[in-house]
């Protein structure tokens, strides 16, 4: 059972206090987008076996969303960070590189 730190309130909490929200950093495509773009946005998930950027909501706590970088095969957590960002922060990417060589 996962333990994740909510960057909004600073608590490390167990999964039962959180609600998972799927892949992070999706770019929304609305009217005017191509079929390909729209399909990719709604359905074609990375579903990586490995490092995954994903959304979580501290549902039973502060109610805020945050993002996590987590390995889906080892469950290692490289870090959690603000949901108000379009890409993973540099320190987390550095840690991932250090840990996985990628």
């Amino acid at each position: 059972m996962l333990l994740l730190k909510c960057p909004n309130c600073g608590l490390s909490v167990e999964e039962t206090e959180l609600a998972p929200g799927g892949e992070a950093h999706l770019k929304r495509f609305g009217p005017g987008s191509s079929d390909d773009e729209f399909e990719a946005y709604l359905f074609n998930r990375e579903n990586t076996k490995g490092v995954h950027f994903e959304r979580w909501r501290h549902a039973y706590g502060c109610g805020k969303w945050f993002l996590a970088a987590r390995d889906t095969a080892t469950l290692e957590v490289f870090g959690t960070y603000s949901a108000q960002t379009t890409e993973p922060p540099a320190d987390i990417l550095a840690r991932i590189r250090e840990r996985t060589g990628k």
Partner: protein
Amino acid sequence: MSDISISRLPITGMIGLRGDLSSLGKVVKAVTGCALPDQRMCTSADGHTLLWMSRDELLLTCNAEAAEAIASDLRSRLSGVFATVANISSARQVFELKGQGVESLLANVMPVDFARLDASEVRRTRMAQVPAAIWRHDGGWRLMCFRSVADYADGLLRAARPVGA
């Protein structure tokens, strides 16, 4: 065996505040005397308690009768600022828990490390199957949940009491 008492408090005044915390903090301090609490903490003054709920949300507890007046006061002081003040005194049920072993009773239903909880910390968490918040108050504990599940919360707490209590 156990001297834990669980009681439902009568309606408590509650004002929900959303917005930039420092602007909220200033007006609340002016109106109630409560300082802006640190992350996850609460402060008290003159029978008011100001609880940190999230990075843009505070909860002020007060006398139920006074709630609407305080809310209007806060609202007018915040006019022009992007902030929301809502009187939500009816939305929640507050319990008072007192006695020895309250923490271990609560540990039946909450994934909370009580030993690591700061004296003025407000813990929003999961109580069995519902959201709840707890904080220390007057030598005991305050527990807050939504009004509609007050009976459930009551039943849960009573079921968790040590035998004989």
